[in-house]
């Protein structure tokens, strides 16, 4: 079953197209939502929650239509908004209990789960304090606690590390990794911070100007480029390259001795040393490059040509 399915989704707000024909299916355990400001990330989240209606197309969460089955979707979703959102005059435990009861838990279970959720996110000691006395980091955590308390199937987190100091940020990321590892909850994390998505997600949806710029599995994307190698060499590089081309490698050499190559399957790194030895070239440095999320993001943002096009063959 897909977690989120978008079918030509178009959303207009104030007469302006904010989401333009989004189509795709996300099945990952943790889905990252990336994009510059105004790309439509928050609008997509609000549409999934049923706050905005699609003007064309449709969006489904766990095969439930966001227009017709709003209540059922909200039942299955825990939402942590980007900005402050709580009732400051309530104590932490009362607020989380209130939200759990609204999500459908009976009062007794809601109270029990509220205590547990607060301990889980690390607010156990301050659960009887009023929320408006909490620090910024605590306020982020109370939003996470209320999103978790009713045991949702999908946790939607809008900028979860916003305003957190490095320690609190690391703790939040560890908590998200733990939730992902536990396995019963899917995560949809919207963030400006690529590192956060990189550490927590296995699938990424990149939006640009209301359109999908990239939708990919991060691990698969990395694997597909795992044979890209950069060398720093001394000696007859052209001869080395010619030999590699004979083995089916795509290879480009540069004046400063740098060589970039994409190896086909079946050729290992040690083969390069053998060929270098045969051609009298020294390999001074070898760098097996893995695509970072930043590379994926930058390519999506700038419409960067494929790497092969950058390499002089």
């Amino acid at each position, binding site marked *: 079953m897909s977690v989120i399915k978008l079918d030509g989704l178009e959303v207009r707000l104030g007469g302006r197209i904010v989401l333009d024909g989004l189509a795709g299916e996300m099945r990952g355990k943790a889905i990252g939502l990336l994009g510059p400001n105004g790309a439509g990330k928050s609008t997509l989240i609000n549409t999934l929650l049923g706050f905005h209606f699609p003007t064309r197309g449709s969006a489904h969460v766990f095969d439930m239509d966001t227009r017709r089955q709003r209540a059922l979707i909200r039942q299955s979703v825990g939402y942590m908004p980007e900005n402050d959102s709580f009732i400051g005059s309530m104590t932490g435990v009362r607020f989380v209990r209130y939200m759990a009861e609204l999500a*459908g838990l009976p009062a007794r279970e809601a109270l029990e789960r509220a205590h547990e959720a607060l301990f889980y996110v690390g607010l156990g000691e301050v659960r009887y304090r009023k929320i408006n006395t909490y620090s910024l980091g605590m306020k982020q955590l109370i939003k996470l606690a209320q999103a978790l308390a009713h045991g949702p199937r999908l946790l939607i987190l809008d900028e979860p590390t916003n305003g957190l100091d490095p320690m609190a940020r690391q703790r939040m990321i560890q908590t998200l990794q733990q939730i992902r590892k536990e396995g019963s909850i899917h995560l949809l994390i919207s963030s400006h911070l690529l590192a956060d998505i990189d550490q927590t997600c296995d699938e990424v949806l990149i939006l640009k100007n209301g359109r999908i710029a990239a939708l990919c599995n991060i691990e698969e994307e990395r694997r597909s480029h795992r044979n890209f190698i950069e060398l720093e060499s001394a000696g007859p590089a052209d001869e080395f390259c010619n030999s590699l081309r004979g083995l089916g490698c795509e290879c480009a050499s540069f004046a400063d001795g740098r060589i970039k190559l994409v190896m086909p399957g079946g050729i290992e790194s040690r083969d390069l040393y053998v060929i270098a030895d045969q051609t009298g070239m020294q390999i001074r440095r070898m760098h097996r490059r893995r695509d970072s999320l930043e590379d994926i993001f930058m390519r999506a943002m700038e419409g960067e040509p494929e790497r092969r096009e950058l390499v002089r063959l």
Partner: protein
Amino acid sequence: MSVYKHEYRAYTGALTPLWSRVVVVVRYAIAEAWSSRITVALFILSMLPVVVYLVGIYLANNSLARAIIMRRDNGFEIGAGFFLNLLATQCWIALGISAWIAPRLVSFDLADNALPILLSHPISRFGYVMGKLIALLACLSPVTWIPCLLLFAYQGYSSAHPWFMANLRIAGGLLVGSLLWIAFLSILGLAISAWVKWRVVATGAIFAVVFVPAGIGGIITGVLRTRWGFLLNAPVMMTQLWQRLLGAPEMMRDQLHLPTVAILIVLTLVCGICVLMLNARIRGREVVRG
């Protein structure tokens, strides 16, 4: 999730039906309203007139007590006029209580931007507003129609002749008049509280919305020599409506009487505006135009 193991566990128990989420809002709203000592003090104060009227009914029906306390036996009659005064007193006290409670119910949610989280749960905007409205009605009922009907029942019990059945219209008038007024106050209070962020200002604004137009209406009536100015005057308008509901004698000159239909149209219009105000304000997300 366990307190001791600190591990997440999914919830697998039973869920409450969707309609009961409104009851959750009602429960928390009532608790919020009564968490203030001022609410308790206002409620106790609102019972003082009831006690006075209760003593009045007792004296009216007990000539011996009347002779001892008032030192003369000039009996007074309990009728529509008596209950009209009781209704008017309690209803104006209800205005004060609603001006205090309504901002507590809505402003706290809006001040800390709680609506995105609240409405991301399986409760609609209508359900949320309905929950707050029911909570406010529940808080105002013990001040208005409940004591009024209890005193009516006591008068029926104390009266020697078959007073109860002969005056059932008063009971109906007390119930309908109270419900109309507290429903009007509740929706007005919620609408104003949704737009005014500061509680104290919202409390003042609720009083202002009732009494400032009354002044303007008085000026219009005086300058233009027309009765229609009273349509802006809630005290006059409601007093006329209550008089007719209870069958009490009208105190104003005939030329100043407002048609009941006109009064009901004004009340409906104001409620309609309040619904629009709530619709614009109670949202999970702001939509920036343009």
